[in-house]
Structure formats: C-alpha cells, structure tokens
C-alpha cells in the first residue's frame, strides 16, 4: 500500500523521507521543520513509514504503525493524534540502528566559542531540558538526544531534531519561550505529556558547524546540589552503554571513544532546579573547558 503523503527532512547530516497514510502528521512535520535546511537531493539516508493496519483502521480509531529501513519488532502503535511522536520515534530508531558516519552518544549538546558541552544520562536526568534552556541563554543548541562524534577528527556534529520536552519540562520552557516555537501538546503518550520545541533559527542555520568537545556532564535532577569527579574507566563504560553504535564502528569507535575520554574533562552534577544547574555548569565550564 503506497503512502499518499510524503515529506523530506534534513536534521544535521542525516536526511529522512517520511511517508504517511495520513496527511496530518506530514502537515505538522512540514510546519515544525519549516526553518530547517532542506535536503540537497531526492536521495534520503533513511525512509520512515507511518502506516495504517488496514484500510478500515485508516479511518476508524486510526493507529499509526511505525516502519522504515530499520525497525524493531514489538514496537507498539500509537494513536493518530500522536503521529508526530511516532515520526520522531521512527527517525530516532533509524539513527540509533543505522547511522555509521559518526559515533553516536545518547547525550545532549550545546556549543559556546567553538567548544561543545555534552550532557549524558538516563531518562529523567534532565539532559534534554538543560540543553533547551542553555540554547536560549547564550549557547548554540546542537542536539538533545544524539551527540555525533566524528571518528577521524573527534569533533561533535549537530543533530538538532525537535526538542522533546516531557511533563514538567514543558511548563518550564513555556514560561520562557514564545508559543510559535512549540508543536502541539500531546497528552497520554507512553512517556507522559510531550510537547516539541523548535530549536532557534541561529542554531538551525549553524547546524552543519561542528564543535570541539570540551566538557562532559552527567546530570542528575532532583538531588541536592553536588559536583563529583568520575574515574576514566567509569566514564568509558558509561559512554559505551550510552552509545548505540560503538560496537558496530569497530576500531574507529574504539579510537574515537578512548580519545574522547582521554581529552574531555567530566563531572557528575546533582541539581534541584534549572537555575542551579546553569550556575554549576557555568562554574565548571570556566574551570575546565
């Protein structure tokens, strides 16, 4: 069954062809990705499909099944109202399983003076919200989910997808951002309430400009303010766990990650608020970067 509605998107170095059985998710994507650089050609790195289960289910209680070049069995379908989320999850999956041109780390990235700050941690650590916040406070936003490290140069490249804000983070950013930077509010998703934030125009226009990794932070939200050093062995192991393609890259991945760990100072920080985190980060950046 060929999908009727199509769009082509570029996010950093990766291009996606999104094909959908419904118009609405495509219209939403086109609107939110309006200021992104366009793909150079018709050829896409990845194809993503948003499919209906049957002709009947296309119209009656429509649910979106995610498919594409790379897929996982047991991926649960989403209601059409969350089609935008389905498209985002599908694009993430393509990167996580299929991208080989850079070492991928689950980390958010912001840049200042040509140097990159990476923040890595589990869901709920706050890395995504912190990157959104810093992106509006003098830093260039480079990504909230994937950091791309070039194996040859060690530089970090931008993957500035729509920032996926969840639950309380939505309110935090709604207070400081104009309404036209946001996508629709999605309720009752598998991850709670979600609202997408479009990165700033400046960060999108600079999305092919790399930066040299200069500091790595392991943030932890909801704990009393603290800063800790971490041993290099610990950092290396945690980064392999945070990488979806470390093993697939073989020796290039090994050299890229050892070089990263050798050269980039790292700290774990605990914080109770975005303001507190920003103060800690500024202090550490002045000291270490």
């Amino acid at each position, binding site marked *: 069954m060929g999908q009727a509605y199509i769009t082509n998107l570029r996010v950093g170095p990766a291009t996606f062809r999104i094909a959908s059985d419904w118009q609405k998710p495509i219209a939403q994507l086109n609107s939110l990705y309006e200021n992104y650089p366009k793909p150079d050609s018709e050829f896409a790195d990845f194809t993503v499909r948003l499919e209906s289960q049957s002709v009947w289910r296309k119209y009656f209680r429509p649910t979106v099944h995610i498919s594409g070049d790379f897929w996982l069995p047991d991926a649960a379908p989403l209601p059409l109202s969350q089609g935008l989320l389905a498209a985002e999850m599908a694009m993430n999956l393509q990167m996580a399983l299929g991208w080989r041109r850079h070492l991928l780390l689950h980390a958010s990235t912001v840049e200042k003076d040509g140097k990159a700050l990476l923040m890595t*941690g*589990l869901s709920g650590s706050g890395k995504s919200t912190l990157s959104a916040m810093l992106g509006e406070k003098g830093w260039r936003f480079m990504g909230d989910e994937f950091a791309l490290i070039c194996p040859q140069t060690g530089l970090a490249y931008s993957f500035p997808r729509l920032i996926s804000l969840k639950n309380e983070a939505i309110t935090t950013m709604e207070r400081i951002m104009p309404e036209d930077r946001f996508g629709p509010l999605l309720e009752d998703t598998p991850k709670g309430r979600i609202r997408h934030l479009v990165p700033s125009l400046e960060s999108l226009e600079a999305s092919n400009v790399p930066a040299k990794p200069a500091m790595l932070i*392991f943030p*932890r939200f909801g704990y009393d303010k*603290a800063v*800790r*050093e*971490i*041993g290099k*062995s*610990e950092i290396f*192991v*945690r980064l*392999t*766990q945070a990488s979806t393609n*470390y*093993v*697939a890259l073989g020796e290039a991945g090994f050299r890229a990650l050892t070089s990263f760990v050798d050269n980039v100072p790292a700290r*774990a920080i605990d914080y109770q608020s975005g303001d507190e985190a920003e103060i800690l980060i500024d202090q550490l950046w002045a000291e270490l970067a």
Partner: protein
Amino acid sequence: MTDQPAKNTSQKEANGIVTRRRALMMGAVGASAVVSIKPALAQTAGSVLNCEIPIPGNHVSGGYIAPDGKIVPPDTPGAFAPQGRTFTGEEVKRAIRGGSLPGTSHEESQAYVNYVRRLQHGQSGFTCYASLQMPR
C-alpha cells in the same frame, strides 16, 4: 626458588638509589578480570570482581555511614566513622551473600554493604558494583 634475599622486598637498590616496584593486585583464581563490551546493554563476559569499591567514595566528605547505608552527619548515634577503606568486588560480593567485610565487625560490615547497595551513577565504585550484578 633461588637464594636471593632482595627478591622478596619491595625495594631494589641500584647505585644506591632505592626504586620501588609497582604494587600489583593479583586477585583470586575465581575472580574474572575481564568485562567485554557487547552491543546489548546488559551483557558482559564476566563481572570484574577484581575491581575496587572505596567505602566511602569521593562524594562523601566527612559524613558517617548509618546502618542502612545512608550518609549521615558525623557523630550521629549508631553510625560508623568511615575508615576510608577500599574493598575488592570479590570481598563485597561475599559480604552481600552474608559474610563480613574483612577487618570489620558484623554491624559495620552490614552498614558498608548497604552503603554499596545505594551507590548511584557517578559515585566511585558504582561501575564495579553494577558489574557484580550482571550474570556471567
């Protein structure tokens, strides 16, 4: 073994200059010393029982360790002063199974074991502790 008295000391003398040899932890026969990085998050070739867990770690400054493993202010009743000791993963694993950490009383050992159980990402010893949890 040949008769060389210098062999069993930790210092060698050459030209009047004393040089120390690096200390090497041999570990135990049954203690694996390799963890292999695998694509799936939870797979390891073997837990690194030769790794070390400092008790307490670098995130505790001046705190004492309560019986439930929490860090509490110094001189809290029932809490144990940190001796700044390091234990191997092997020793901690045995203690978790019901033994005692070497050189500690039973109560002290329990407090230290509970402390280890509370270790979080970013705190010294967490990777060692995490690797203890992974099946071979």
